[in-house]
């Protein structure tokens, strides 16, 4: 399960757009590490993640190469977490967690249900298996989405601002939880929040105004980092850098 991913010469030009969203980008996702891309909204970081996930429609001009360290294709070995929890409102929590099995085979086996129950218990969500998503709070819903991601059990996890819709306390808690349960995955996290990037990254890049990836330094401690004075200093200098970059 330890796979590093190399993205080479990635370019994307949306059909009808005046200029390319980015071109010639290289990015390495080291095995079992969290790589964060930090940038303001609209800078193209989400497009980069969508490109890696194969979610960009073929009508848009795209090129580049994605290679995994084990030589196999990246297809079907990623799971995707978005800002919205994307829980299907007509399925209960358990069925939502088991969605992949349902989509691939049309049914959910008892063994998979058992595994899903364990994951829910691990995320402190026991007892809500039969609830519909609309009956849950935002924090709980995103935890269910995390359980669904874990259930997919892929070596690579792509996350697009999965915590940004949560309130501060829930965000902090879920960041810790995600860092803990996704410790052995190769993760790409897209965020616009410098504090979140500093808390969770093993490797951090700033998406610059000219669509380049600038590597940034991180505190020495291991993620998930506490919000202490050291992190505060890093956050201050990061905010200044972002101001210079994006005005």
């Amino acid at each position: 399960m330890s796979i590093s991913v190399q993205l080479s010469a990635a370019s994307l030009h949306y059909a009808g757009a005046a200029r390319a969203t980015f071109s010639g980008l290289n990015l390495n996702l080291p095995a079992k590490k969290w790589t964060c891309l930090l940038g303001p909204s609209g800078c193209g970081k989400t497009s980069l993640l969508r490109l890696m996930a194969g979610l960009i429609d073929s009508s848009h001009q795209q090129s580049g190469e994605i290679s995994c360290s084990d030589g196999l294709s990246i297809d079907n070995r990623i799971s995707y977490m978005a800002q919205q929890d994307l829980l299907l409102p007509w399925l209960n929590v358990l069925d939502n967690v088991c969605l992949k099995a349902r989509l691939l085979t049309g049914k959910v086996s008892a063994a998979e249900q058992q595994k899903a129950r364990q994951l829910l218990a691990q995320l402190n969500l026991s007892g809500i298996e039969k609830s519909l998503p609309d009956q849950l709070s935002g924090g709980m819903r995103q935890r269910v989405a995390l359980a669904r991601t874990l259930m997919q059990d892929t070596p690579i996890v792509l996350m697009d601002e999965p915590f940004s819709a949560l309130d501060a306390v829930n965000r902090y808690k879920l960041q810790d939880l995600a860092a803990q349960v996704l410790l052995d995955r190769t993760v790409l996290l897209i965020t616009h929040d410098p504090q979140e990037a500093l808390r969770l990254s093993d490797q951090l890049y700033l998406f610059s105004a000219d669509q380049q990836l600038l590597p940034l330094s991180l505190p020495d401690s291991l993620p998930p980092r506490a919000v202490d004075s050291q992190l505060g200093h890093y956050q201050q200098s990061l905010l200044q850098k972002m101001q210079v970059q994006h005005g």
Partner: protein
Amino acid sequence: MAKITFSRSNLGNGFSNLWRLTVTAVVILLLWQAIVIYFEMPPFILPPPLLVLEKLIGSYQLLLSHSLITMSEIVLGLLLGLLMGLLFALQMLLFKPLRRWLLPVLIASQAIPVFALAPILMLWFGYGMTSKVIMAALIIFFPVTTTCFDGLRYTPIGYLDLAHTMGANKWRQLWHIRLPAALPTLASGIRVAAVVAPIGAVVGEWVGSSGGLGYLMLQANARMQIADMFAALFILALFSIALYYFTDLLLKALIPWHREQTGH
């Protein structure tokens, strides 16, 4: 210190609906009787409610047999129209090149009034139930197809992204994501269809038929038996209302998540 206590519940909703309906019915009946008395209406122009009730009771066997014909036409037309609309919307979604060819057909199905089509349908399908079922199906075809197509087309993109990264094929996406996501939109189309379908069936009966409430009304009208006509009209209205509420309840039971999202 002011103290506010809250006590709200919607347990009484079913009862209050029935209550409202009863009050409305009673008010209409009273107004009706008042108009008959005040304007001294002769029974062949506006029969008093009691006379209509008398007819309802007196010739209930005749009314019942014709009602069953009309109700069957409506329900069968509704089912046929729903099936046609659903299939039409599905293939517009799945075979994009076909869409441009079929859209004019869809619009024509709505633009040509069923009144204009009715004589042709009589000619082709005879005076029996078939032509009325087709009329009812045709008249609901457009609202069902468009709502179904819109529902299927505007699936939240995030759901589809998620399904894509999970490796779901087109058909599983359709069955597990697109179709259930389209249900709330389709439901509003079905509600419209339940109200409109009786129009199609009755228009069909008026143009030419050998049975049904429309046939009965036409016959009664020709003989100036206006009370009989009102009796038939009353049954038709009652059935249409019942059909709508039944459809509404069924849809709410089938799509419980929609109610929770909208709070209704």
